[in-house]
């Protein structure tokens, strides 16, 4: 396996397997405050 140096937020959302890992209403890991207008 080619080793890659990991960068960025390790908790960012991904799709894996036959369905995506989708957040539930109480999952706060996908809040995107930096995209909101300041």
């Amino acid at each position, binding site marked *: 396996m080619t080793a*890659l140096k990991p960068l960025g937020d390790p908790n960012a959302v991904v799709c894996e397997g036959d369905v995506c890992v*989708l957040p539930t209403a109480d999952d706060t890991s996908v809040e995107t405050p930096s995209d909101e207008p300041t």
Partner: protein
Amino acid sequence: MNEAIKIDVWSDIACPWCYIGKRKFEAGSGLFQGAGDDRAVEVEYHSFELNPETPVEFEGSETEYLAQHKGIDPEQATQMLDRVTAIAEQVGLHYDFPSVKHTNTVLGHRLIHYAKAHGKQLEMKERLLKAHFVEGGHVGHIDDLADYAVEVGLDRDDVVRSLLSDEYLDAVREDESLAQEFGIGGVPFFVIDGKYGVSGAQEAATFAQVLEQVWNERASETSAESAEVGA
């Protein structure tokens, strides 16, 4: 003139976070390039099939698919999709899950490879994602795919010929083996300069920060090399 940072992106077409991640990456890349000093990026997309077993003609809605495969009730699946739809809205994407046609994406990936060979990869990738998530288009039928290809400036007859053959299937499989080699288990996944891995739909600011970090590391390496040569 500095060399552009190469970003290889593994993603699927039927992947809501890939489209959201694409928008966030584009925003982050824009911030990075706006910082000047010839900062540039070169992006190439690679195939990743989340579920190669999906039939072309899937009977049922995205909600039903999600409920079946996650073993949850349809109401919970609807809530999940509503939440993703709200997140997509934040990056300007108007997802319409009730009209999504769940299908196999291998033909779409082959078309993206065809488009790459004709200088239209980025346009084709964007067109298929939009068709799938926003317009309720079918990205598993040759006729529909050929229509989208024409919209980005490709030749319909040649696209149909290509999709009716096995052309570019080896390119799809090669991308998938490379993903395995890198240990990529989820998408979107961004490989930067062949050395750094960024997983998932990161925030735009995070993408910008990562690109800046890679840019600065490159500059340090170049300075160190110049110092060695001069010594």
